[in-house]
């Protein structure tokens, strides 16, 4: 079974401070991991995916298969980063592996 755990429901940091949103997963095959973000009054959208190995809006996330983690990090948080962040997992290769499983989300608040 696929499972995604985001241990922090709420995370509050000050502007300019580093931020790390934790995500752990459980999956027996090769996973594909995503971070989705939902800003206030906007729809859910992709922030980044591990396969792209990109930095988006200063955020990075590294897949650690040994620790089964995909933590989202940013060295200097900005107020506009305040949003709900969801970690999600899918199996690779299509077919019945495609299902996206979401964590419960972490609400990040960046204070001025």
């Amino acid at each position, binding site marked *: 079974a696929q499972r995604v755990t985001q241990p922090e429901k709420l995370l509050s940091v000050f502007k300019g401070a580093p931020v790390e949103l934790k995500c752990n997963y459980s999956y027996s095959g090769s996973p594909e991991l995503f971070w989705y973000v939902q800003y206030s009054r906007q*729809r859910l959208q992709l922030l980044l995916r591990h396969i792209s190995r990109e930095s988006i809006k200063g955020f990075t996330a590294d897949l650690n298969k040994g620790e089964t983690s995909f933590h989202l990090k940013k060295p200097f948080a900005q107020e506009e980063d305040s949003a709900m962040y969801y970690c999600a997992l899918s*199996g*690779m290769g*299509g077919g019945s*592996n*495609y*299902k*996206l499983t979401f*964590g419960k989300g972490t609400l990040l608040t960046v204070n001025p």
Partner: protein
Amino acid sequence: SAVISQKPSRDICQRGTSLTIQCQVDSQVTMMFWYRQQPGQSLTLIATANQGSEATYESGFVIDKFPISRPNLTFSTLTVSNMSPEDSSIYLCSVSLSRTSTDTQYFGPGTRLTVL
């Protein structure tokens, strides 16, 4: 990318009635999905809407309760049947532009349903 609209954006319904939610995409897509987000919970996949065939439902969701239509490559509907207060949720439509949904999924704005 894809632009997705949903109708209605919100509704308040009486117990025992049914509501049909529409999802419209601005381009032809292979894969469309329906999710539910109950209050304080994460998104849960209800089913995959397949064009030209029956939807594929996830464990815990059945066609009689959540019938889905997918008449073409740009449109789908989800009906929430015989509603109870436990069906109060946000219902979201999403699409994937590739044949494997390990590609990015694009989400609609959601339909907020309250059942009294």
